[in-house]
Each structure stands twice: as C-alpha cells, then as structure tokens.
C-alpha cells in the first residue's frame, strides 16, 4: 500500500528551470503576481497615476500675476470652466459628436446589414477587408485626403460644377452656422471629415449584432403579415440597437476628444480638444486644461453607463 501511495508524488525536478517551475505549480499566486506584475505596474501605476495626477491638478488654480500654479485646493478653476464662452465650446462639441454619431449610424447600417445578411463566402471576407482597410489606414492621410477634396480648386467643386450645381453649393455656404467662405473652413467640412474618419468604427459592432438576429425571426414576422418596413421597424432595428449603441461609443468618444480635424478643416471656433490643447500649450494653464479633460470623461462615463444598461457591451 505504501509503495503505491508514494508513487503518486513524483520526485522534485532538478535544474533551475525545473525548480522554478515546481515552485510556481505549488504557489499559483506567485505565478499570477509574476504574470500580472509588469502590466499592472505599467498601466496601473504609470498610466493611471498620470491620469490621477492630471485630474488632481484641476483642483488647483493658476496665479493670475505670476502664471504659476497655486497648489491649494480650490474650485475656482471649475468656476472658470463654467463661464459662457467655455460652455459654448462644450455644447458645440457635444452637438457635433451627436450629429456625427447619427450620420455614422445611417451610413454604416446598410453596409453592416448587407454584410451580415446577404454577403457569403468570398464576398463576406471581401466586405470585411473593405471595412478594415479604411478603418486602420492612417488618420492623418484620411484628413489630408479631405483637404484635397474640399479645397476650393479641388475635386468636389469640380464635380459640383460639372453637374451645374454650383449655385446650390454657394447657397449652402451662405447659410449661417453651417456655411463659411469655403467647405474646408466651415462646420459642414468639419462634420463630413469627422463622419468619414469615425464612421468605419460603427460598422463592425452593428454587423455583429445583426448576425445574431435569427433569420427565422424575420421569416416569422413576414409570415404573420408584416411588411418589410414593419419587420425592420419592429424586429430587426430593436435587435440591432445594442450594436448601434456599441458603435456610437467609438464615434461619440472619438469626436469628443479630437483636436486635429477641427484645426485643419473647420472654422476658427474651438472644440473641447482644441481648448485643452490651447490651455496647456500657449496659455500654460494646466489646471484649466485638466478641468476641460474632466468634461469628456464625465460625458463618456454617463454614456457608457447608459450603454451598459442597454446591453451594448454584449455586442462589442
């Protein structure tokens, strides 16, 4: 009996690697610590530490005369944040982000719907690549491409001219708010470029949500006498909604924080990202810049909480 019992336990391994390996097997917590240690030090301490340090600075204020940071707890910076001019910037950014998200959903939905429901085999792979390549291609090159397109002497004006619709373009540009001297320095231009750059992020989540809609459900709806429009309205769309919300997290958040697109294509009025950039750079007011970054964090926090309640995270 004793001989059998003994043979269950192997002798200890020899060599450093063997001993280390045995040690990890007996102490799985040490192995876990070794695995998680480096990434946690990097992300948890370096990254989160920097974030907290930044947020902390929003509770300091800047001395108006010396321009130095006054390290005393105060809410003065937040009072400064809530002035009319800054609230304008916040409102402008949020409205733009909401419009971009809406337009992205409208453009992305047919692509996702076709890919999920009709594309098969080789076509499906092709569709996937056709979405992935623009999604991953260089951000700056995409913005640059639109600078070429929207320029006064560029392809868009040429094309509109060929269609004899220049009067329509001019009428649009003469409108208040959305208009401007040319498309590349108007909100319309900023809006188009935002939609172009962030829309691809919307397609894959919607496609994933649509692929989970069983075809039998759509069959059942039409068997029960639903027209295609009714089926879409009452069956397909509600089931795709978590996917749309999941995609909107990207389009909304990315538009909210961008400062390069409105700087290159847009009017001179600031967006949140530009305000942060200006405050920390030329103005040298780090506390106000930090307070400005709190705005997108709070908005995204609320947005994510709502999205989670709608089940959007299962669609990611």
């Amino acid at each position, binding site marked *: 009996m004793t001989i059998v019992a003994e043979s269950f336990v192997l002798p200890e391994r020899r060599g450093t690697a063997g001993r*280390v390996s045995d040690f990890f097997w007996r102490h799985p917590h040490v192995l876990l610590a070794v695995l998680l240690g480096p990434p946690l030090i990097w992300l948890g301490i370096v990254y989160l530490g920097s974030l907290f340090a930044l947020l902390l600075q929003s509770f300091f204020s800047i001395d108006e005369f010396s321009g130095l940071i006054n390290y005393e707890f105060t809410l003065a910076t937040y009072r400064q944040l809530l002035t009319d001019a800054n609230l304008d910037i916040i409102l402008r950014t949020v409205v733009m982000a909401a419009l971009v998200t809406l337009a992205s959903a409208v453009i992305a939905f047919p692509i996702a719907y076709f890919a999920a429901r009709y594309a098969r085999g080789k076509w499906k792979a092709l569709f996937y690549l056709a979405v992935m390549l623009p999604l991953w291609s260089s951000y700056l090159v995409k913005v640059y491409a639109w600078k*070429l397109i929207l320029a006064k002497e560029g392809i868009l004006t040429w094309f509109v001219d060929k269609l004899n619709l220049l009067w329509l373009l001019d009428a649009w540009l003469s409108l208040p708010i959305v208009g401007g001297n040319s498309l590349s320095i108007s909100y319309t231009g900023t809006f188009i470029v935002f939609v172009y750059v962030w829309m691809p992020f919307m397609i*894959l989540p919607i496609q994933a949500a649509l692929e989970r809609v069983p075809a039998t459900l759509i069959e059942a709806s039409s068997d029960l006498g639903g027209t295609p429009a009714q089926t879409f309205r009452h069956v397909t769309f509600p089931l795709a909604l978590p996917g749309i919300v999941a995609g909107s997290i990207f389009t909304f958040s990315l538009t909210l924080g961008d*400062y390069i697109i409105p700087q290159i294509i847009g009017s001179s009025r600031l967006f949140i990202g530009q305000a942060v950039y200006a405050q920390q750079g030329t103005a040298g007011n780090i506390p106000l810049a930090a307070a400005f970054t709190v705005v997108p964090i709070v908005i995204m926090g609320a947005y994510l909480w709502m999205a989670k309640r709608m089940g959007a995270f299962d669609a990611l």
Partner: protein
Amino acid sequence: MLSEKSNRAPFGLKIAAAAGLAFMHLPILLIFLYAFTTEEKSYQFPPPGLTTQWFTTAWGRPDVWAALTLSVKVASIATAAALVLGTLCAAAVSQTRFFGRETISLLVILPIALPGIITGIALRSAFSIAEIPFSFWTIVLGHATFCIVVVYNNAVARFRRISGSLIEASMDLGADGFQTFRYVILPNIGTALLAGGMLAFALSFDEVIVTTFTAGQQSTLPIWMLEELIRPRQRPVTNVVAMVVVIVTFLPILGAYYLTRDGDQIAGAGK
C-alpha cells in the same frame, strides 16, 4: 428555410451599401492620383499633368528619412514592449481566476477608450512632475501604453481557444511549466501574437495625438505630416509621403487578417 426571394438583397440596400463603401474608399484612392500630379502650388483637380518626378524628390529628402526612421524605431520598440505586457496580461486573465479580473480588461482598454488628448496630456504633465526630459523613450512609453490593448485582445481570444486539457496533458507527460509554454502554448498563440504585433505596429506608426504631447523636438512621420497639413510647404512631397504611408499601413493589416482569418475573433476590433 429562407425562401429564394428573401435571399436576394433589395435594390435600395445594394445601392446604399455600395455608396457607403465608395464613400470609404474613394478619398484614399485620390491620394494615389495626387502623388503623380504636376501641380505644386494648389490642390487643383483634375491634375494638369502626371509625373513621377516627386518620388525622386521625396527620396532625396533627409527630413523625411529622419522622420521615417524615428517612426519605425519607435513602433518596433513599442510593439515589443506591448507584446510582452499584453501577452502576460492575457495569460493571467485567461488562465487563472482572481478577484478583479474584469477590472484588468477595463484597465487595458482605457488608454484607447479615453480620447487620445487625455492620455497625451496626462503623460505630459506626469513627465513634467517627475522632471523626465522628453526623449525617444517618452514617445515609446506613450505608444506602448495604447498598443498593449491590441496585443491583449488578440492573445486573449486565442488563449480562450486553447483547451485546458492540452496543457494538463503536457504536464502529465512530465513537461515543466517552461517546456509547456515553449512547446504547447507558444505554437498555439504564435500567429495571434504576430497578428497583434502587426496591428500594434500599424497603430504606433500612425499615432499623432499622444505623440504631440510626449515628443520633444523630434518628429515622427505623422508629426511631420501634421506640420505639413497645418502649414503646407511641400505639397508634392507630402502627397508622395501620404501614398507611401497608405501602402505601409495596409501591409500589416492584410498580414494580420490572413493570420487570424480562421479564428473566431476580429483582429482589429479593439482599435
């Protein structure tokens, strides 16, 4: 069974999907045309003539080469760091259970979920508090932070597909932990890591927002392009560089796609 009729896409849907895809691709194709235009002072369309002379001009520009070399160096080292950290994190999350596992996934995704300007300004103010001067390494540090998520997503998806019995079998046959890793786990996750690494490289190679905050006087290729965008001085050279960047970033994405296409996950879903 679906009827024959419902398997054919409605005409309107086809048009809308085709228009959407055209909207996504035509602007990028336009970049290729502009690389050959003879016009130097404006973005005139149609181009008055076509030429290949700008390729030689761009080839002879030391500032473009310096920016390209810096970008490649930063992307390589940031990718290497992200590969190690992302794999460690993925191994811990998928192979063990512990308190706060969900939080780790959130922490990894955070640098890419928050707008880049927040990550950038946070790192910049941390560098200034810690009195670290801007250098090559501060750029790498910023890039590696948001590259981890790409490697992590690819690795975690693959780890989930390795059955636990495979690892137990290896242990039962007498392999120690390192041998199991070398001969069982690594061959299984290899292509996922390669794909994740390629995507991380593409992400780092293209990054501009965080870089503007963590770079001192040095300029990576995206920073060089950004300066040209704000104040165009060398339009023809910029056109050529833009075309090269498009081609350079397409290659890793196609590569990553072919490496993971049989998998159950979407290689780039984490961007």
